[in-house]
């Protein structure tokens, strides 16, 4: 059995391979195709969703920042319009105003200053000592004189701290003057700095020159990356948001979302690692790959098992077919040998008969007076006797050959197997006694009658019993004869405790003329006759033998259908 298992796949490597790869290709291809298409679609829609979400986020914050700036500017403008240069030039009044503002809005306004047309700060309220400072050369002042409202970029200024200012210009007695308010950088910075999404999403503001207007959470090199490209883009609409994805200098893929602020002066930039932004998608992708790999493994396993089974099945079929072919050949061989044997038997029988008769004639003649005194009379008689004996031997052989070819009484009759076996045991009892063999019978009662040729069946069992007796002639032993019904057969077992049949001989014992008996003792036809008879009956005969333990023949006789 181990051997057959081992050769099962080995015998059919090409077949196995073909099945194996066919199954794999036809299972994996659709799986990968379907998963790929679904994943691609999912990726596209997920990207769209993320982009839309980020655009929304940036747009909202741009509006926040814009309204923050507009609000602060509005506050200062109200201040300028309500009180005018005269009142505001009074530092204590200005200080009151700053306090009011700070009370109303928190520490967003750091200080207030009033500057005349020459650039001299005539009044100042705030934590720094900036009274009577001349701003005539400061770029923001030039700008403030040109425009009615100015929100400056972030700069260090005289105080040496990053800040930006809001200025409103007005006229008093034909002279322009300017009121200036410093916006707290921290408060402003928080507006943008608080934009945090995921682990790597953050926002910052750049001015047209690419200078940072807020402190970014992570390092940003404004003159690299897509920032300058954003600057160059002309805005078609006020609320336009630009989105690009590209690799930064470290090789990480980032998403950049940008929107202009402050009428196009500033750019609000949001950036996030693509891996972070699409982390949900990445996770889905990982799960999908895990499923694909597991599925692949399952398919490969299944393909292996399936192909192994198929190959095994085919191998088994092939083996069965081979066995059947062999059996057919065997049966054919037996049949042709049978015919041949019949021919030979008949042809030999007549000459042998003549020889024996001639010998008999000589014997007859020897009876006559003339020969009675012959010197060699005894010798003649011995030789003639020998001729007769050998002639009889020839007759036995031809008789067996003929019964091998053509069965003896093949009339079909109702047979009780147990009765028949009993009879055979009785017949063999005498011989068994001489060989010191005990014959035990163990019959199943009320076996159904079967319609067969009794004499043929007798021949089968007599042959088996005689063989067993021959095998144990010198040693003695037991023969167990058992009958029982098994499925559609009556099974008769004839088991002896003889020396057994060597493995090499075991599959030849049914071959005609195969014998291990001494020359002249056996014809080698007994078992092949049995085999032929059982085949003709639609039955089986099988043998099992273990050296030094014994041999068991099992004869399967088909039950007659009612």
């Amino acid at each position, binding site marked *: 059995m181990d051997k057959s298992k081992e050769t099962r796949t080995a015998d059919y490597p090409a077949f196995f391979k073909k099945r194996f790869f066919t199954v794999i290709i036809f299972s994996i291809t659709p799986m990968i195709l379907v998963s790929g298409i679904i994943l691609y679609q999912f990726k596209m829609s997920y990207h769209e969703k993320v982009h839309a979400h980020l655009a929304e986020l940036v747009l909202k914050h741009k509006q926040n920042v814009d309204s923050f700036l507009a609000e602060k500017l509005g506050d200062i403008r109200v201040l300028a319009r309500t009180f005018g240069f005269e009142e505001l030039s009074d530092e204590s009044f200005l200080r009151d105003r700053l306090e009011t503002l700070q009370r109303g809005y928190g520490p967003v306004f750091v200080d207030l200053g009033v500057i005349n047309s020459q650039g001299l700060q005539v009044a100042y309220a705030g934590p720094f000592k900036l009274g009577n400072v001349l701003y005539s050369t400061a770029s923001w002042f030039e700008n403030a004189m040109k425009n009615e409202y100015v929100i400056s970029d972030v700069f260090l200024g005289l105080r040496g701290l990053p800040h930006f200012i809001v200025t409103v210009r007005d006229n008093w007695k034909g002279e322009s003057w300017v009121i200036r308010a410093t916006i707290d950088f921290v408060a402003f910075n928080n507006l943008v700095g608080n934009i945090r999404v995921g682990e790597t999403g953050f926002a910052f503001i750049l001015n047209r020159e690419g200078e940072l207007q807020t402190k970014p959470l992570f390092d940003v090199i404004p003159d690299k990356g897509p920032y300058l490209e954003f600057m160059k883009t002309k805005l078609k609409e006020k609320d336009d948001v630009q989105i690009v994805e590209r690799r930064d200098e470290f090789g990480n893929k980032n998403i950049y979302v940008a929107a202009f602020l402050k009428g196009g002066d500033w750019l609000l930039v949001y950036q996030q690692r693509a891996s972070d932004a699409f982390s949900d998608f990445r996770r889905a992708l990982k799960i999908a790959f895990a499923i694909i790999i597991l599925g692949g493994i399952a398919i490969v396993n299944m393909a292996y098992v399936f192909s192994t089974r198929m190959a095994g099945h085919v191998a088994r079929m092939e083996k069965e077919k081979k066995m059947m072919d062999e059996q057919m050949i065997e049966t054919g061989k037996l049949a042709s040998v049978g015919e041949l044997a019949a021919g030979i*038997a*008949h042809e030999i*029988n*007549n000459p*042998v*008969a*003549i*020889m*024996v*008769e*001639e010998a*008999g*004639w000589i014997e*007859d003649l020897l009876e006559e007076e003339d020969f009675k005194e012959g010197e060699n009379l005894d010798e003649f008689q011995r030789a003639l006797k020998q001729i007769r004996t050998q*002639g*009889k031997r020839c*007759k036995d052989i*031809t*008789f067996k050959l*003929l*019964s091998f070819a*053509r069965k*003896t*009484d*093949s009339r079909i009759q109702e047979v009780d197997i147990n009765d028949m076996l009993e009879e055979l045991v009785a017949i063999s009892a005498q011989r068994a006694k001489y060989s010191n063999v005990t014959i035990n019978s163990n019959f199943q009662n009320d076996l159904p009658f079967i319609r067969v040729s009794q*004499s043929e069946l007798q021949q089968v069992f007599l042959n088996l019993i005689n063989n067993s007796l021959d095998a144990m002639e010198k040693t003695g032993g037991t023969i167990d004869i058992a009958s029982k019904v098994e499925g559609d057969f009556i099974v008769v077992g004839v088991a002896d405790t003889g020396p057994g049949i060597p493995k090499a001989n075991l599959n030849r014992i049914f071959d005609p003329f195969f014998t291990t008996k001494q020359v002249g003792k056996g014809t080698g036809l007994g078992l092949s006759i049995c085999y032929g008879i059982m085949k003709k009956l639609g039955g089986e005969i099988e043998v099992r033998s273990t050296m030094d333990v014994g041999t068991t023949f099992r004869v399967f006789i088909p039950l007659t259908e009612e």
Partner: protein
Amino acid sequence: MKTPLVMLVDDEVPFVETMVKRLEKRKLTVLTAFTGNEALEKLGKHRNTDVVILDVKMPGMDGIETLMEIKKAFPLIEVIMLTGHATVESAIEGMKLGAYDYLMKPCDMEQLMAKVDEATRKRKDHEEKIKEARVREALSEHGLE
């Protein structure tokens, strides 16, 4: 008892020759035939033949056919089948057709002689009975009984 008149039918000439010698040595009168047809012909001439020893297997008309013809034409003649084909089958068929017995070739001379004697006796018995019957018939015809 007078010696039985036997006819030996076999296609094997040497066999027949030797058998004739051996049977004659045993005080039998032996007729021979080498084919079934020849046997029937000769039996026609020798209606007093007691026993026919007939080989089963012969070319042309075989033993069984010959037996049938003999039994048809000469019902009282007993037939002993001699067969190289020692098959119970053919023997049984022969017996069914009215053969007295069968023997296997090569056969034991003593056995053959015994069978011939038995068959002859049976033939004689039959003849006797028929004769008796005829006598009785004749007697009753003449109103003697």
